[in-house]
């Protein structure tokens, strides 16, 4: 679960990591009142859950309330890299000496948190990664040790920080951020820029935090942030039904329903190989009943880009007869113009095929294998 910058900063402050003084603005009514605790100049930052916000024009500067209003009028409600801007974070500008980069994510090879630090922070960090990878310090932290003095020493040394005072500050920030990362079940915590102020302290000027969806349940404070995070309507509808809806490609024309991400990837791969393109996919997970399968089909067919649908199931926990029953139910109860190619294997396969063969609908096409199904789902569009 991705958090907005202002939500990430709430967590930062909870852990004692300083952030600039700021106010979240969701409407321009009473703007003067909303901003009364702030000094000027300020930065007006669009709250969106994607990177590259600055370069896309989502960050503006203002010297007074009128300028904030002007910026707000421009930004609020606008669409930035596919995300609608519902909120702004208005923050006091701070006098900056340097801009650092600091992040923690997971190193999947060693199964350890990976801390990355560079003195060359700011918007061009990805360029630095390409042209001067040695300028980015990377340290994995054994979670059974936790982050230690020597980790911070290594980050500072490779990252190019030599001043003892700043090293000490950095160590404090790294330890704080690690604790937040670990205790809050984050999969990403990124501060870019981490600003060095004139007084030698460090302050988090941005916050990118992603929390493990599977662990949100055990953090009441993050659960409370959840409702502010927008979810695409079909993703939400799928989630409420217990399914996972995935947007694959806007130019695609095929919908895929399957049980398990591995099979979904294989379906996408096969259809691509046959020259087609999947636009969205739905993962039923294990053990879906006929009623729920019918629900899933309805959700996918709400995506108007879907011109044909491939349902590929390998029944383990999931039973093929339930899938077939769901297909039948969906087709019977609705008037889709979309052909459905179904391919069943595994538990109760014969029973499922029996149900489909008795359906007597031109929209229901049966395939015996995944290659055949991929072929048929594309031909059905012609």
């Amino acid at each position, binding site marked *: 679960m991705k958090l907005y910058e202002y939500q990430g900063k709430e967590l930062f402050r909870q852990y004692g990591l300083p952030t600039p003084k700021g106010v979240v603005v969701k409407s321009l009514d009473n703007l003067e009142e909303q901003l009364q605790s702030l000094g000027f100049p300020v930065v007006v930052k669009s709250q969106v*859950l*994607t*990177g590259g916000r600055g370069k896309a024009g989502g960050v503006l500067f203002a010297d007074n309330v009128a300028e904030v209003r002007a910026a707000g009028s421009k930004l609020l409600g606008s669409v930035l890299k*596919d995300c609608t801007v519902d909120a702004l974070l208005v923050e006091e500008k701070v006098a900056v000496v340097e801009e650092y*980069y600091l*992040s923690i*994510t*997971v*190193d*999947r*090879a060693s*199964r*350890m948190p*990976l801390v*990355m630090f560079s003195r060359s922070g700011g918007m061009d*960090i*990805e360029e630095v*990664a*390409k042209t001067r*990878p040695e300028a*980015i310090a990377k340290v994995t932290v*054994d*979670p*059974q040790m936790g982050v230690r003095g020597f980790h911070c020493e290594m980050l500072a040394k490779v990252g190019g920080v030599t001043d003892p005072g700043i090293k000490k500050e950095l160590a404090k920030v790294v330890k704080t951020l690690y604790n937040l990362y*670990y205790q809050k*079940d984050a*999969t*990403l915590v*990124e501060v*870019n820029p981490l600003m060095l102020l004139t007084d030698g302290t460090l302050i988090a000027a941005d916050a990118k935090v*992603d929390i*493990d969806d*599977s*662990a949100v349940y*055990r953090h009441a404070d993050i659960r409370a942030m959840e409702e502010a995070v927008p979810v695409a309507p079909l993703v939400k509808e799928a989630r409420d039904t217990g399914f996972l809806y*995935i947007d694959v*490609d806007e130019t695609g024309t095929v919908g895929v329903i*399957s049980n*398990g*991400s*591995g*099979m979904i*990837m*294989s379906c*996408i*791969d*096969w259809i*691509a190989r046959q020259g087609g393109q999947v636009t969205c996919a739905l993962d039923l*997970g*294990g053990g879906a009943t006929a009623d729920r399968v019918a629900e899933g089909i309805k959700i996918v067919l709400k995506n108007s880009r879907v011109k044909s649908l491939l349902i590929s199931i*390998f*029944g*383990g*926990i999931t039973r093929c007869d339930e899938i077939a029953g769901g297909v039948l139910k969906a087709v019977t109860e609705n008037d889709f113009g979309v052909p459905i190619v179904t391919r069943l*294997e*595994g*538990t109760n396969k014969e029973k499922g095929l029996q149900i489909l063969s008795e359906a007597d609908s031109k929209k229901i096409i049966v395939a015996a*294998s*995944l*290659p055949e199904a991929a072929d048929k789902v594309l031909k059905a569009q012609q």
Partner: protein
Amino acid sequence: MSVLVDKNTRLLVQGITGREGHFHTTRMLEYGTNVVAGVTPGKGGQTVEGVPVYDSVAEAVAAQQPDTTILFVPPRFTLDGIFEALNAGIRKVITIAEGVPVRDMMEVYHYTKNMPDVYVIGPNSFGVISPGKSKAGFMAHEIYSPGPVGIMSRSATNSYETVLAMTRRGIGQSTAIGVGGDMIPVSSFAKLLPLFQADEETKAVVLIGEIGGADEEIAAEYIKKHMTKPVVAYIAGRNAPKGKVMGHAGAIVGASGVGSAQSKIEALTAAGVHIADSPNHVAEILEKLLA
């Protein structure tokens, strides 16, 4: 022979009185698995399909000496269940739950990483099956057949596809292991390859990977150095969608290319692994290799 589970396996089912636990205990017993005990706190003294139920793993171990356990418990109790099993001395743990927090499995990985004889399969695994002998999992066992090929897969469905294609061609399996589809599988390819290399029955190994992580690359290193048996690999996700990326960390790490289908296929190819384009192709390659 076979690996991890066989006729001698004494299986414990944690969460045996739950809906899934009960159903799959029945299926496993039908398959011939030696399910010796179950555990559900507070339900000690009951039986499920004739299997005695205990309140704790420690009690089940004392009474029935299981050597392997499978957890049919919800994701939020998985960490406790794994630790309980390890604490009671069980060395083989199979976890099928989907949606276990990443940090929990990180803890299990690091807790067990220096224990050479401990195998934690999963999470989000379909289990382990040695066809004709024993199964500890929920896989559709009807598609499996005994034979000379060991299989490890991150994806349940892709391994089913592969097994079905193999079985249709008359190529059986020594053991099939679901290493699990989550971000942090505990005992992954590199930890399991030595078992197949040592197993007399296994003549070839199939590795079914997918994009993300570095387990296929790490496995490639092991294969290069130690495997004398042929390995066939299928990597899913060459055309998988990219998620909306927040922050730069992914891009910085990704700059090395590790984790992409291309990186994995290159590493495996360099290790002498046969690369298949699809589950069906795996079976075709095996047919030639074993001819």
